[in-house]
């Protein structure tokens, strides 16, 4: 069973600034969970598109209710791959990001398409899709709900990080108000989903004794 999610957002910067910022995203104040970043493959295609593969190490945080169900010595670090294609002619960028560790517990794939905002061509639109699945018997639904909630709140950090880096690049001070509203919303969403996930987990546990 796979949980699907999609959303769209935009950055108030031009496509070339955003594509440049993409390579300079880390570190930023919202990326403390990202430990390492490496380009492990890069190639320019005959059509002059840039293909890149980035390897990321992130801290792996399981919620407390899940800890008792997970293997005792599960790694605290997660490895993630991000593949991207930048098309400067078409002014688009497509990225695909997924975890190559912990995949049986929870697998998240995210596909993003960046393009010039059709309503304002000095802005950049980001269409984001995610597929979240878990194969852990009995806990799949709870883990997927948790995964989805965490993914949604991580989008906030991603966008804040991007805006921060873009503002720095453009010599401005990053604004806080927009970011703060987003944080509150994200926290509320995460809290609601956390309760739902906890609920599902305790239901799953009860079922075992029937």
């Amino acid at each position, binding site marked *: 069973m*796979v*949980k*699907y*999610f999609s959303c769209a957002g935009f950055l108030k910067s031009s496509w*070339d600034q955003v*594509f*440049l910022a993409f*390579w*300079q995203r*880390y*570190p930023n104040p919202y990326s403390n969970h*990202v*430990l*390492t*970043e*490496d*380009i*492990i*493959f*890069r190639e*320019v295609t005959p059509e*002059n598109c*840039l*293909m890149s*593969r980035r*390897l990321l*190490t992130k801290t792996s945080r399981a919620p407390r209710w899940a800890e008792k169900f997970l293997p005792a010595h599960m790694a605290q670090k997660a*490895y993630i*791959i991000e*593949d991207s*294609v*930048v098309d*400067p*002619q078409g002014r688009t960028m497509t990225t*695909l990001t*997924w975890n*190559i*560790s912990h995949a049986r517990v929870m697998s998240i*794939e995210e*596909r993003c398409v960046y393009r010039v905002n059709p309503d304002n061509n000095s802005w950049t639109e980001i269409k984001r*899709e995610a*597929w979240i699945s878990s194969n852990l018997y009995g806990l799949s639904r709870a883990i997927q709900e948790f995964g989805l909630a965490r993914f949604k709140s991580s989008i906030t950090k991603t966008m804040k990080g991007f805006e921060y880096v873009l503002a720095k690049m453009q010599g401005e001070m990053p604004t806080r108000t927009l970011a703060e509203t987003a944080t509150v919303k994200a926290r509320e969403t995460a809290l609601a989903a956390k309760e739902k996930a906890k609920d599902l987990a305790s239901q799953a546990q009860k079922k075992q004794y029937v």
Partner: protein
Amino acid sequence: MNSVGEGCTELKREYDQCFNRWFAEKFLKGDRSADPCSELFLKYHTCVQKAIKEKDIPVEGVEFMGPNREKADS
């Protein structure tokens, strides 16, 4: 930002600087001249590949845009 290979961070920094300059000044502007960073990338890449092997990171055999799936319903 640190590299996954502790000794590779400086090489990464040098490569990143070169890349960012080429990316902004040439690539994005449609200039098709080859990027001048291949040597730096090679040095950096060799270092990182070693670290990846040592840490047993499962990057081998993963197709580019591998899990590229169609839109799925929940």
